[in-house]
């Protein structure tokens, strides 16, 4: 098996209009920005984007919004914290105008729904969100005198993930907090595309230090590490 693609653009070339895409990265850390940029070049439309944030620390996703490629977003922290900054953000405007549909979940529920999809489970009962707006439209059920909400699995068509090192068969090792959503999103995507800073031959990674088993990754592409100062201001 050799899952390496010759270029970032080749790795995203077949993504069709209407696809759902889980995008790893927590604000700036571990974000597959190169893949988002390639998707902006590629131009697929009516996309559902599943990611933490649709702006702060994730400005490359904004291009998808301004180009009108996004139909729906599924997030846990979609907006800028600052109302002023938010008011001028393309995504917030698109949501307020109804151009983009938005679903928001608590962070733990958000990633657990993706994990459930990856793990072949239909759903799970979580205590998070009971008594809040998150209850809306969901089954509430009591187990051992505590209330829980039924949350259903999310099964995205694609996942964009990022890793420090990857091998040709798709095994990935992440670095520090750049791991974040990447392992579960990689597992959840039907087709998972991994951007890696360093590409090694099989055997080049410590097999006890692999955060994403290669079976979850269908495409690997080498990218250049960007250097930046983390910030969401």
């Amino acid at each position, binding site marked *: 098996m050799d899952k390496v693609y010759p270029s970032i653009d080749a790795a995203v070339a077949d993504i069709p209009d209407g696809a759902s895409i889980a995008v790893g990265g927590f604000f700036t*850390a571990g974000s597959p920005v190169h893949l988002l940029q390639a998707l902006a070049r590629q131009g697929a439309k009516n996309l559902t984007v599943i990611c933490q944030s649709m702006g702060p620390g994730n400005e490359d996703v904004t291009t998808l919004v301004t180009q009108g490629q996004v139909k729906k977003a599924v997030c846990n922290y979609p907006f800028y914290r600052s109302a002023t900054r938010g008011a001028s953000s393309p995504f917030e405007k698109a949501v307020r105008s109804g151009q983009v549909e*938005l679903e928001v979940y608590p962070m733990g529920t958000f990633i657990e729904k993706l994990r459930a999809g990856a793990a072949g489970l239909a759903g799970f009962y979580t205590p*998070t969100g009971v*008594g809040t707006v998150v209850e809306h439209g969901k089954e509430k059920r009591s187990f051992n005198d505590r209330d829980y909400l039924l949350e259903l699995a999310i099964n995205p068509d694609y996942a964009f993930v990022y890793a*420090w090192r990857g091998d040709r068969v798709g095994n990935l090792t992440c670095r520090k907090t750049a791991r974040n959503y990447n392992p579960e999103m990689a597992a959840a995507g039907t087709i998972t595309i991994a951007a890696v800073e360093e590409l090694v031959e099989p055997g080049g990674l410590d097999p006890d230090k692999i955060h994403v088993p290669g079976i979850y990754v269908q495409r690997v592409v080498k990218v250049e590490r960007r250097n930046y*100062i983390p910030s969401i201001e």
Partner: protein
Amino acid sequence: MNENHRQLHGLSRELIALRIANELEDGTYVNLGIGIPTLVSNWIEGRDIVLQAEIGMLNTGPLAAHGQVDQDLINASCQPVTELPGACYFSDCESFAMIRGGYMDVAVLGALQVSEKGDLAGWNNPERGFPERIGNIGGSMDLAVGARRVIVAMEHTTRDGDFKIVKQCAYPVTALGVVKLIVTDLAVIDVTPEGLVLREVAPGLSAQEVQSVTEPKLIISPVLKEIHL
């Protein structure tokens, strides 16, 4: 609107954080939310308290100084941080499994409103006017539900002098009945099944003054004292 409002002077944000730091016990795991809670980290260096960063880290150290910044090492507010000996990294999914699973001894969270029943409203200020049911939930609901003890750190009233400690939350709630302790610039208040118990007041303030900026009726602790820092 609080008609009895007058401007009371109390602790700075840094000292609210210090008061909370004093409340934390050694040997505990703690998650600090955005805002005043983050400042608590300035007061616990050298103590036997392990901080979790919900992005997926334990034993998070202080903010990274210039020249120390590692772009792959940030906290949930996207601030570059450092790692302490004994640190470990894990996925965000594992992080929230840990939070919901009851492993966080304490979560210190900010709030827009807290009710006398311990309901917490913090994730969405309706003044921002988002469409219904959306906003920046982030990790707040999981932390509020999962932590063994939720401490709220906030200013006692809004800038306009409106009550933030209320009979019933008017803002969208983060979780119901979860807050155990409220620490503000003016007071330290226990949330108990009997109601809100005023335990400490800021130097120079009376219980009556704190009551005047607090909507629900406060139970005055028989051992009421001045906040000691």
